[in-house]
């Protein structure tokens, strides 16, 4: 691993009521890395993110962030510097784009830098500048995804978790989203944890990847190795 781990996941297990979702997930994310989690539907990628963001309480294992055990309520986890952009964007449809972004900076730490963060988000997605007063529910899918990512950035995270950010977008917008993720990482210095059905593009921008299967981490490696791996090719790249 190139850098000191910012996030360490150790033997996480979690369940929704009686239904077990995670059995044994372990991985680490170094400061400044882009890490992608691969796996089929139901492998536990989203559940893993939900554990990290505090929405799902693990029944075993430990999450450490910046060296400290992370057993906090979701609102405190955002304050600590972790933000999750959920699948399906989950904007507030009857609020304006500006309000959606403002609320992204809800935590006290982020609120002080609101104007700066907004300028950064608009520089990443210039198109949002003219949409600020529009209701979020009236935007196109691509624009909604931009707002969702922007809202996450407004909290000034150290770790940005993206769950299927390109889902349902036109190919041109997919490229745009990946370009921005790379930019957020390279220029903004934000560590990224990415879950993507678009495995090839995810591996192209990621430094390393982990493969999950039925709630367990079964493989890991540098993204370039995973891209060449025959098994990965067969399972995720359709080759």
């Amino acid at each position, binding site marked *: 691993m190139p850098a000191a781990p910012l996030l360490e996941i150790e033997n996480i297990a979690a369940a929704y009521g009686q239904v077990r979702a995670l059995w044994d997930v372990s991985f680490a994310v170094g400061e400044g890395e882009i890490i992608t989690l691969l796996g089929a539907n139901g492998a536990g990628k989203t559940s893993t993110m939900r554990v990290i963001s505090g929405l799902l309480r693990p029944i075993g294992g430990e999450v450490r962030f910046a060296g400290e055990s992370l057993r906090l*309520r979701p*609102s405190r986890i955002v304050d600590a510097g972790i*933000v*999750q952009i959920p699948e399906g964007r989950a904007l*507030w449809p009857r609020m304006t784009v500006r309000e959606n972004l*403002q*609320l*992204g900076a*809800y935590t006290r730490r982020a609120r002080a830098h609101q104007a700066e963060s907004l300028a950064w988000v608009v520089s990443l997605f210039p198109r949002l500048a003219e949409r600020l007063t529009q209701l979020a529910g009236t935007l196109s899918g691509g624009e909604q995804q931009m707002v969702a990512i922007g809202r996450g950035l407004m909290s000034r995270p150290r770790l940005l978790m993206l769950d299927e950010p390109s889902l349902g977008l036109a190919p041109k917008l997919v490229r745009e989203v990946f370009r921005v993720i790379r930019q957020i990482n390279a220029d903004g210095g934000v560590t990224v944890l990415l879950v993507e059905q678009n495995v090839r593009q995810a591996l192209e921008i990621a430094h390393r990847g982990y493969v999950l299967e039925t709630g367990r981490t079964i493989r890991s490696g540098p993204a370039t190795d995973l891209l060449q791996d025959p098994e990965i090719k067969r399972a995720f790249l359709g080759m």
Partner: protein
Amino acid sequence: MFTTQNLVSVAIAALLTAGLYAVMSYGLAIIYGVMKVINVSNAGFLMLGAFMTLMYFQWWHLDPVAGAVLNLLPFFGAGWLVYKLLVRRVVSARPIATLLLLFALWLVIQNVALAIWGSDDQSIITAYTYKSLIVGGFRLPLTRLIVFAVALLALSLLHFVLGHTYVGKALRATVQDPQAALLVGIDTERISALAFGLGTALSGFAGSLLTLLFSFTPDFGGPFQLKSFTIIVLGGLENFAGVTVGAAVLALTESFAVLFMRASLQNVIAYGLLVVALIVMPGGVAQLWARTRS
């Protein structure tokens, strides 16, 4: 029999009532929106608001409008406590649990009120209770005008808080998508407590205003409660602007119905409208509006 003069005065009376209806329903809408709980105890707090206003009036000759303002803080505290001590523990259980809990709370409040104040009809007569203003040939009872103005002021204030403050926006965000709210760091638990406090404060406030227009007993919250249900269903349950529309629709329907049927049947209109709304347009006026536009 129906002169224009007649119809206009009915319409004015209806709109004056609508303001009060909106205020007494807003709390219900906010609480439902944030935690998807029907606050049946609202009726109890409405009644308690009225009786506290009577007490202020008897102790200090305090005007009911001042009583309404005075009610805000203690009723906010009471609602906040009800959430922290009771609702929070059952809010994730099946809806019937909170419904029964809050129904029981209503009964407790009602019976405590009966024990303290008895079942006699109470009313507050102020210096202006029987006065009216003549505007453009229409006789407008002063109490209705005052209640309307105060209600309008309260609603404007509420709209400002919900639309322009961080906490108000956080509350609306929690209504529209609670999980997204959690993910940006909004403490939805705190917002819920706040919403219950705010909703209860509005009940206490509305209860005070009701004393300017009606006499009351410990049983009196019920019919108003049902009107509030009708209003928030008409408004679309989670749509705060819809509350105002729902209040206007109900007030107009009730007032014009009186031209055709006995006044004692007025409540039938509210309940009838509730049934019709639930069956024909469960999404309320807002949904109907959206449907006709698309």
